[in-house]
């Protein structure tokens, strides 16, 4: 169905899905009569939910200003959690049948508590994902997965077999692999896709059936392959980092490119971090998912995971070299504590490696867009 569409038509379709992130899921619910579970950012085993026959979607930050939600969550909490609370307060999440929270960040815990209160009819689940990386951490994550599996089975009234989980893992692995292929192309031909295109690809993957997304990507990839050599490459090569939980706003990504940069790689949650690693298909499924949490954090370190064996600043230095990036732009959501704790180390590592970086602390309301624009332009100009 997508093969006959042009590259731009496919990208526009994905952009539409991403812009109105719950509409496709609602359609799916009408079509199938099945249930939807919202995953409260940022770590959750979508495969396990999928295996129960429900559609897991990653709850998204909406660009609109927070209004009703102010009554339920303080203004000095991060934009992603406040935005989701706001959506729940406005009734925009009433279509959910359940949601899954986690305790990797206290602001996410509090947000899930408020959402649970605002949506009393929605099944409120929790994924216990212990932080750290001790000899027993893998076993502890398996236990957390078993507890969640038990709760999902009760919720979906369906026993989840190992084969069900394995089949879901295969579908999700395929999606990650296809998106990594897009990344590979973009890293070599950065002007092939804009950052907003990449965001649409990732974001749409988070909110629609993966099977359908795979079909779209399988149509898109050959078209990108065919187009890549005709693209003229120019611009300062920039690596984007940060923006945990919520997607950076398109407006911000456009500013990066308008300032004369091309984005050659990222470690955004709505980016490479989401699809960096596959889950092993030759292990007992829950053990494989647990190992995935540890392994992917080794490959793309996350400051919420408290694993001292990982080194996020060094990962960034290595990534800059791998992608031949000239500059690092750090997008930090205002009030994001895990990120704030790490910024001094990143700053020191970049200074030691002689890599220029720009820190943009972004409020949900993007109330200083002109300042951001000026800072980006001045920063990118340094490398020209």
């Amino acid at each position: 169905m997508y093969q006959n569409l042009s590259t731009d038509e496919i990208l526009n379709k994905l952009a539409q899905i991403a812009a109105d992130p719950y509409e496709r899921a609602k359609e799916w619910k009408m079509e199938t009569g099945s249930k939807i579970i919202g995953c409260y950012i940022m770590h959750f085993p979508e495969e396990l939910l999928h295996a129960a026959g429900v559609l897991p979607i990653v709850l998204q930050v909406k660009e609109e200003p927070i209004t009703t939600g102010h009554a339920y969550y303080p203004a000095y909490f991060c934009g992603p959690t406040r935005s989701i609370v706001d959506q729940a307060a406005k009734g925009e999440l009433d279509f959910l049948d359940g949601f899954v929270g986690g305790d990797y960040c206290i602001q996410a815990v509090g947000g899930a508590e408020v959402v649970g209160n605002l949506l009393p009819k929605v099944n409120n689940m929790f994924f216990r994902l212990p932080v750290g990386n001790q000899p027993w951490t893998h076993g502890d994550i398996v236990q957390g997965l078993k507890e969640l599996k038990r709760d999902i089975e009760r919720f979906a009234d369906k026993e989840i077999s190992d084969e069900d989980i394995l089949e879901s893992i295969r579908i999700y692995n395929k999606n990650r692999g296809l998106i990594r292929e897009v990344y590979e192309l973009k890293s070599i031909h950065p002007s092939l896709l804009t950052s907003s295109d990449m965001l649409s690809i990732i974001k749409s993957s988070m909110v629609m059936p993966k099977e359908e997304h795979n079909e779209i990507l399988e149509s898109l990839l050959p078209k990108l392959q065919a187009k890549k050599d005709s693209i003229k490459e120019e611009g300062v090569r920039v690596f984007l980092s940060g923006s945990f939980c919520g997607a950076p706003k398109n407006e911000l990504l456009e500013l990066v490119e308008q300032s004369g940069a091309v984005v050659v790689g990222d470690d955004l949650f709505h980016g490479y971090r989401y699809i960096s690693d596959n889950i092993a298909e030759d292990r007992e499924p829950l053990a494989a998912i647990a190992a995935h949490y540890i392994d992917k954090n080794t490959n793309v370190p996350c400051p919420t995971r408290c694993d001292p064996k990982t080194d996020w600043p060094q990962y960034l230095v290595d990534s800059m070299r791998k992608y031949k990036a000239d500059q690092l732009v750090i997008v930090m959501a205002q009030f994001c504590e895990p990120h704030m704790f790490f910024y001094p180390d990143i700053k020191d590592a970049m200074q030691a490696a002689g890599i220029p970086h720009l820190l943009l602390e972004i409020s949900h309301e993007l109330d200083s867009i002109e300042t951001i624009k000026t800072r980006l332009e001045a920063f990118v100009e340094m490398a020209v």
Partner: protein
Amino acid sequence: MAVQEAKRANRLKSGKLVNKLVNEYWEDLINAKKTGKKVVYTTGLPIGPFMAAQDMAWIHGEGYGARVAARHEEKEPQTFAENKGFNRELCSYARTQMGCAMFAELGVPDDLNPGPIATEIPAPDAIVTCYPGCSTGPQWDWAIERVFGKKIPWFNVVIPYHMGRNGSTYMKGEEFEENVKYVVRQFEDLIKFLEVVSGKPYNWDKFQELMGVTKKVGQLRMEAMELCKAKPAPASFFDWSIQIAPVNYLTAWPGTIEAMQAVKDEVQERLDNGISAVPKEKYRIFWEGIMNWNKLGWMADKFASYDATVVAGRYTHMAFWHEPDTIDPEHPLRGIAINHLECQLNLGYPITEERMMTLSKDYSIDGIVFHGARTCRSFSRSHFLLAENLNKKMGIQSTSFEGDMVDDSFYKEELVNTRIEALIESLEAQKSRG
């Protein structure tokens, strides 16, 4: 209009006994290296006895931050941390201790002139995290581990959030029991870790003895606080805040039983003689939120001037060995786990609300003050829900204002005055309506 006269809170006199113990503790800590003791950095709930049993010194990050602030030395370490790139929206305890730790590791920069307490922190030999209900704690300790060059062994006891899944409630249910087992197992591993750090077999006899002390102090404190269900209350939340040290970083320190017994005796004596914490108690208030350490005395007098006693709080009444009877000194790990798991920050919202309603009823609460500590988002995460639901379910009115634990730059005094006044006025109107 509420009339504010200059009245002083009648604070407990026996509270001063704790000062002597506090000084002994800090003296021991500062000289730990000289006396051959290993130093362990900790954050979160009190786990001092684990280290004390091995004759190790421990420094509690929040306790240290509060001490530095209480002596008005917090600005310099906070400035140092900010200059290094730590955002001022981060936990102010963390920023304060990080600044002090960096003074110890990197030296004091020429343009800063910190006080003696802010520069006396010894470097750690190990880090032990035991943080319930707050992701900031482990992330803070990880930052400390990096400040000291990633060379310090770090043990993180993961305290799982007690959400209240599948009908689990306070100290009950499948989720609760699973969590207790999980934490006990980690404590067993912590003990092995401490054996390695200290280089000697674990001294279980000493540990059991210390947990006996912990249980006794916990019981005395809870009994003393419960005496304040009486009207008027003989002591206030502000007294209990001052008395936190013996159940926090001073847990099981020599002399804590005697100190807490003296406190309880004084409360009982006041009760017997009709002496109250606030001279003419008219309103009874619940303090919801963490304490603002550099405003404690000011705040106590502020409420006294409105004839309002702050009788209880989630900070003091729902943590710090608040379930002492669960501790079996012979087999202490389960009791420690329960006290940590079921503390004020680690409970899911429905459980928190139920506990708050119970305390509000037990202490005959008229109104609630929500202190939104700007950089303690763990505490303030449920404030708006609690305000709405306690009003809806119990008719309790409330007010709220922003502040902080140890960064008074988040404090707007006039706003605080206005908000407290508004609450008192609405309580007055409510009482006059009968």
